[in-house]
């Protein structure tokens, strides 16, 4: 019977939705902290939130809004946020082969949803038939999109509910510290991270927070130098 043969086929829309749902939970703090960062920055809340649909890029959004709120120049904040998002170049590169089998509307639309979690889920699904891959990708991406829009909006209203006197702004560096640690998988990267922190500290008086760009660049160069000593 027709319905039988249908029910044997795995449903990739459902699977993409459920897989994304699991990854939503650890991302909740980022969404809420983004809302707090918008409040703290003094930028109009819906203007700040508009970066969710426009950028759809958690850490880069938090970076941009936080630095703007701290009085960084637009150029410094934007550059820092772009550098934070630079890992997406790697995602794009990794996804390019599987996208060659997709229709062009999808190749134009898919990058908008290529966030960390969608990349993590879909990079292992490259052997699926093109149509199933597309269903899975869209289901995961849209699930994550709806989550991010909703929870970054909720985050706008979490701050005022918390008891006064609790300094919640420290949540942003805490979460970024967590992100930092998860990107370190060798002593070279640990050395680079400590070095970049020290340089940032020493350059704290540079105008409009541009010291962080110098420090990030210095760290990157040190990393490449250390890489040479590896073998």
């Amino acid at each position: 019977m027709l319905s039988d043969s249908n029910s044997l086929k795995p449903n990739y829309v459902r699977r993409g939705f459920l897989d994304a749902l699991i990854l939503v939970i650890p991302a909740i703090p980022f969404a809420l902290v983004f809302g707090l960062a918008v409040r703290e920055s003094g930028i109009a809340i819906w203007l700040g939130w508009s970066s969710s649909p426009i950028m759809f890029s958690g850490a880069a959004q938090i970076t941009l809004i936080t630095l703007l709120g701290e009085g960084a120049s637009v150029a410094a904040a934007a550059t820092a946020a772009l550098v934070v998002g630079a890992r997406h170049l790697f995602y794009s590169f990794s996804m390019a082969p599987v996208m060659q089998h997709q229709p062009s509307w999808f190749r134009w639309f898919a990058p908008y949803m290529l966030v960390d979690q969608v990349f993590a889920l879909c990079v292992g699904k490259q052997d699926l038939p093109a149509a199933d891959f597309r269903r899975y990708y869209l289901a995961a991406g849209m699930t994550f999109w709806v989550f991010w829009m909703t929870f970054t909006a909720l985050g706008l209203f979490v701050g005022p509910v918390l008891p006064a006197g609790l300094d919640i702004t420290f949540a942003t560096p805490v979460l970024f510290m967590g992100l930092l640690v998860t990107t370190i998988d060798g002593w070279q990267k640990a050395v680079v991270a400590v070095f970049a922190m020290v340089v940032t500290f020493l350059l704290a008086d540079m105008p409009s927070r541009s010291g962080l760009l110098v420090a990030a660049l210095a760290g990157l160069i040190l990393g490449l130098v250390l890489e040479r000593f590896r073998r």
Partner: protein
Amino acid sequence: MIIFLTIFMMGLGSYAMRAVFILLLSNRRFPPSALKALEYVGPAVMAALVMTMLLSPEGGNAPGVNEWAGLGTAAVVALVTRNHIYVLTLAMAVYWGVGYLV
């Protein structure tokens, strides 16, 4: 207006970084040295950002004991659990606790 324009340009930038290879690349190869460099961007810029957020906007003053304790906790919890919910709750608890004590 300038803020909205910035966000809008950043949106274009985010999209461009995610789209560039998907739209342009078919069989060209990425230089391995560039891939290596990309790996170090994360640790370098994240570390610089954490420190920037600790320093006050006026510049200068060093982070306090409670801030170091909170960050240390965040680093250890992230290393052990890799779970950002634990990172956030435990590090904030330590940060507030130490801040209350000193």
